[in-house]
């Protein structure tokens, strides 16, 4: 596809969007109506609620609260019943007389702390979901996460998400997650708006998100709103709790692997609250006690505080610090982790215009120390992000989001420092790379008719790679060259360097990213939705291994690496039935990604200054069908999720010549899963006992097995089948958990809870990998399976007071 033919539909799309926007603005003028606005919070702890629905009963007028719990509803003058609902909370109905603009803050309470005067109704909440064009979105309540059985008793948001359709991992013990056949580095992971570059502790056994500090989790698998940009596969938006603004509270847990403690409470009188959460593993202490010289540990710390200057101005400060440390005897020492900070200013201009300004810092770095070779290896990525977002509630039919942001990146791909005079290693510093990614967006939610709602928007993103480093030039401009005689890709011949000064711009990219989705209400119980989104990604994670490691390095787009561009089309059917007790979601998607890099055979990424000599530009495509049947209410809740999907990659030779990787044929991505079935259930027997279970079945991971052997250098050498043309055996397991809340605590301030869980109940040896090699004693070839977890029982004690 040439760039011209690609641009045309985008320009058409853009014009159409601008026209609709204009019409939308016009429609808002000339109505005589009033606005009711305010904040929705949890009655027990004052936490603001994101995504609570606020409706005028008997009408279709209403909306949902934003990330800061703010709502604004505009309606013609009159008497209404304001109905406020939120999953897991009691619905609240309030009579209002809308004869002037009103400010109305509302507190609602959770089911478990139900107040008797509130009548529980369940007919309103799902209505919004049907009407809202938002699709391909998974929202997970932290309460749901807490009900699910987990390995070694460590609550894990990312593992819980993998129980939903379209989300998988790359095998047990690997970090991150994959969304709709996308790669791990194609997920934008945000914790309180700050980018998290590595989502896992201990190479992926646990996630960096401490469930005690998290309020809600929202995953956009597609239909990514125009306010987000920078990744082509998904956005995982995780928000930390603000902290209890009513009472001081301590939460904690003692588990097999780690312990947690969270303190929260009001500060600045009644003007603010704070939260401090810490978690630390103690495997290292046990190893030390056992006299083992090796050590492994992790910790993390979450901080948050906020201060209300007045009704219309509120400040938030949040931070996260996490670190992993590994030590192998006296020879090797390493640590790595994320650090983030975010200062936000919420400002309400008027009852229809909400704004938030954020200054965000994120950093990921690692440090390896090789004691015997006397050197250390450092690498980091740091970004500074300034972001200003507005939400304008123009009318009930028309809401506008717009804003701008700029991210300045500082990449240190690696530096080697000798740690002693006698070190055999020479100092080395790879090129320090700098870049600016900026975005400008506008997006509208537009009720076109009582049945049809559209959400459409545009994002313009730009990326400038700055100088301060030389860029190599190559013979015929080819950093990689195909050797047709040997049939292999080789590094191109460097002919010199072009120097760029710090102020110079090496290369600039710009992309128009339209996002459109539509929801059509078929009846009060069902709707169909369709969406299209185009996204650009300017930074890439360099990883030539089957699974990403914490030591992989990010690199910016530039002269040799083009931005990844993705188009995603999705179609879905949504149905609530049996009085909203059940819901069914069916979605299909088709996604393409251009400029996905892949690595030539024998690529060497470690300490590599000229990445361009190791890669070829390829493409990805993924498509699938997702089904999700949920039971939302009652003693028994849970879901069945099924995904049928395909994810492939192709890398042609391009300017390097030759057929490309895998002879230019499409090959399975290592995270391709044909079938993926997950069942998750929770049963509340009474107020003391509850039970949870997970059942998972997945097609095996695509792998490359040998297809022959030969003798060379007295060794049996394997020859291999085409890339990823084999599969590991199917993966399946069952987990169960039992929660027990002793009755003696029930009317006390101190509350305790025991969680007993068993991961992989029938102890299936799921292959995490199968490796082929010679038996060292017999010399015969054999296949060795590595299974990470057998049956893993664990016990955790949680407390709160």
């Amino acid at each position, binding site marked *: 596809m040439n760039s011209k033919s690609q641009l045309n539909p985008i320009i058409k799309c853009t014009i159409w969007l601008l026209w609709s926007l204009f019409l939308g603005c016009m429609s808002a003028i000339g109505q005589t109506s009033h606005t009711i606005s305010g904040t929705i919070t949890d009655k027990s702890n004052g936490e603001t609620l994101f995504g609570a629905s606020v409706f005028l009963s008997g009408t279709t007028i209403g909306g949902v609260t934003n990330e800061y719990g703010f709502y604004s509803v505009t309606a013609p003058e009159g008497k209404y019943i304001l109905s406020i609902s939120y999953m897991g909370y009691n619905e609240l109905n309030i009579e209002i007389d809308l004869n002037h603009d009103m400010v109305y803050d509302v507190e609602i309470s959770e089911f478990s702390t139900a107040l008797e005067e509130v009548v529980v109704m369940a007919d309103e909440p799902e209505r919004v979901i049907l009407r809202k064009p938002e699709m391909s979105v998974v929202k997970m309540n932290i309460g749901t996460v807490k009900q699910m059985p987990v390995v070694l008793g460590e609550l894990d948001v990312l593992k819980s998400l993998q129980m939903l359709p379209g989300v998988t991992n790359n095998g047990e*013990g690997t970090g991150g997650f994959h969304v709709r056949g996308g790669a791990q580095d194609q997920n934008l992971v945000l914790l309180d708006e700050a980018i998290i570059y590595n989502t896992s502790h201990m*190479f992926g*056994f646990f996630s960096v998100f401490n469930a005690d500090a998290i309020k809600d989790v929202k995953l956009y698998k597609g239909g990514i709103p125009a306010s987000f940009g920078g990744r082509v596969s998904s956005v995982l938006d995780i928000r930390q709790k603000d902290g209890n603004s009513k009472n001081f509270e301590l939460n904690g847990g003692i588990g097999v692997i780690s312990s947690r403690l969270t303190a929260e409470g009001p500060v600045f009188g009644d003007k603010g609250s704070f939260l401090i959460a810490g978690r630390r593993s103690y*495997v290292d202490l046990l190893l030390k006690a056992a006299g*083992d010289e090796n050590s492994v540990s992790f910790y993390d710390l979450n901080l948050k505080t906020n201060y209300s200057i007045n009704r219309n101005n509120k400040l938030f400060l949040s931070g996260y610090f996490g670190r992993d440390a590994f030590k*192998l*005897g006296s*020879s*090797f020492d*390493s640590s790595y982790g994320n650090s983030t900070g975010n200062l936000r200013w919420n400002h309400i201009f008027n009852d229809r215009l909400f704004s938030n300004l954020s200054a965000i810092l994120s950093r990921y770095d690692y440090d390896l120390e090789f004691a*015997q070779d006397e050197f250390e290896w450092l690498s980091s990525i740091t970004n500074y992000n300034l972001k200003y977002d507005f939400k304008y509630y123009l009318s009930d039919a028309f809401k506008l989001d717009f804003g701008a942001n700029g991210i300045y990146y500082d990449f240190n791909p690696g530096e080697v420092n000798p740690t002693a005079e006698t070190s*055999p*290693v*020479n100092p*080395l510093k790879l090129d320090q790379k700098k870049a600016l990614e900026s975005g400008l967006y506008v997006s509208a939610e537009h009720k076109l008719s009582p049945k049809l709602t559209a959400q459409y928007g545009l994002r313009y993103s730009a990326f400038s790679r700055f100088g301060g480093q030389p860029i190599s030039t190559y013979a015929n401009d080819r950093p990689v060259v195909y050797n047709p005689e*040997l*049939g292999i890709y*080789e590094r191109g011949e460097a002919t010199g360097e072009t120097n760029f000064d710090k102020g110079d711009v090496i290369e600039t990219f710009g992309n128009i990213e339209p996002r459109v989705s539509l929801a059509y209400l078929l009846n009060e119980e069902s709707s169909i939705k369709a969406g299209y989104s185009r996204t650009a990604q300017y930074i890439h994670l360099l990883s*030539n*291994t*089957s699974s990403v*490691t914490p030591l992989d390095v990010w690199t910016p787009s530039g002269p040799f690496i083009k931005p990844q561009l993705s188009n995603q089309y999705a179609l879905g059917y949504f149905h609530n039935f049996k009085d909203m007790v059940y819901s069914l979601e069916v979605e299909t998607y088709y996604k393409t990604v251009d400029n996905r890099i892949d690595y030539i*055979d*024998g690529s060497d990424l470690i*300490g590599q200054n000229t990445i361009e000599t190791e890669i070829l530009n390829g493409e990805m495509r993924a498509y699938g069908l997702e089904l999700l049947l949920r039971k939302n209410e009652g003693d028994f809740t849970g879901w069945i999720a099924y995904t049928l999907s395909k994810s492939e990659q192709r890398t042609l030779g391009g300017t390097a010549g030759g057929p490309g990787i895998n002879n230019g044929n499409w090959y399975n991505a290592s995270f391709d899963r044909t079938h993926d079935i997950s069942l998750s259930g929770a049963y509340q027997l009474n107020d003391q006992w509850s039970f949870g279970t997970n059942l998972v079945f997945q097609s095996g991971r695509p792998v*490359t*097995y040998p297809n*022959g*052997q*030969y*003798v*060379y*250098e*007295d*060794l049996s*050498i*394997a*020859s*291999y089948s085409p*890339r990823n*043309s*084999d599969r590991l055996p199917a993966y399946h397991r069952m987990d169960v958990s039992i929660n027990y809340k002793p009755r003696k605590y029930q009317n006390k301030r101190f509350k305790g809870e025991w969680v007993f869980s068993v991961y992989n109940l029938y102890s299936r*040896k799921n292959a*995490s*990998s199968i*490796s*082929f*090699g010679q*038996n*060292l*004693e017999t*010399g015969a070839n*054999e*296949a*060795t*399976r*590595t*299974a*990470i977890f*057998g049956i893993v029982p664990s016990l955790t004690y949680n407390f709160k007071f």
Partner: protein
Amino acid sequence: MKTLKKIILGITAIIFASCEDVVDVEVQEGPKRLVVEASLDWEKGTDGNVQTIRLRESTPFFNTNTNTEVTGASVVVTNDDNGAIYNFEDQGNGEYLTMNFEPILGQTYSLRIEYNGEVYTAEETMTPVTDITNVFQDRKDGFDDEVLEVHVVFTDPEEVGNHYLFKFQREGDLLPDLEEGKDEFLNGNEIDWWYEIEEDDNTDIEPFKPGDVVNIGMYGISKSYYDYIKILISQLGGVGLFESTPVDVKGNCINITNPENYAFGYFRLSQVVKTSYTFVED
């Protein structure tokens, strides 16, 4: 950097006693190919006249049949710089032998094999190697600072771009161990290359102990052979999660009659220094 793989494996092993077992797996069957082991190794201080080239065929992966020798091929090596021709005689057991090879450093040689009506050719340069200046034993280095390791000390030549192949084999062990190295981060320095055998729970292989004899070979290799053997070594013993997807390692022997039917193996010309070390009580 060779250490990275072992470190990651080591770490995963510490965190969880992940379990390993041998399983039956069905694999695909690829095409049968000619395997060329044309390693013209010239041991420093010898005349290097006697050289052997081995020809075999590849087999299905789990095949235990070792009868893969290729006979009846014609094998000729030519020095492209001076035109000297060396005919390698078929020994009838897959080996082809010459008694009058003349190795000259820096000169380019060509290999031509005719077999089954197809012609394979390859080209390579005789690559020098520096001397080993010291060999000693110690315990404190290596991944395990309690087991014995052997140290090979040498000084990398001043010019950039030296590549090494090390071959270690303890007397009595079935299989040798190969390691590759380059001077990218170490150019011109004195290099201390250690080798140890780690305790392996799955076999009876034990670390070095006093009395053990280890044979050591250090080969000077070309950049392209380094690229080849590096992939080959990294795929030995199979690949796990944190390693690259394995690939067919393509050598430098081209089938000019039918390029699709390329040969495995390599035509290598290396100067080599060999030594051995006997571990003593420390």
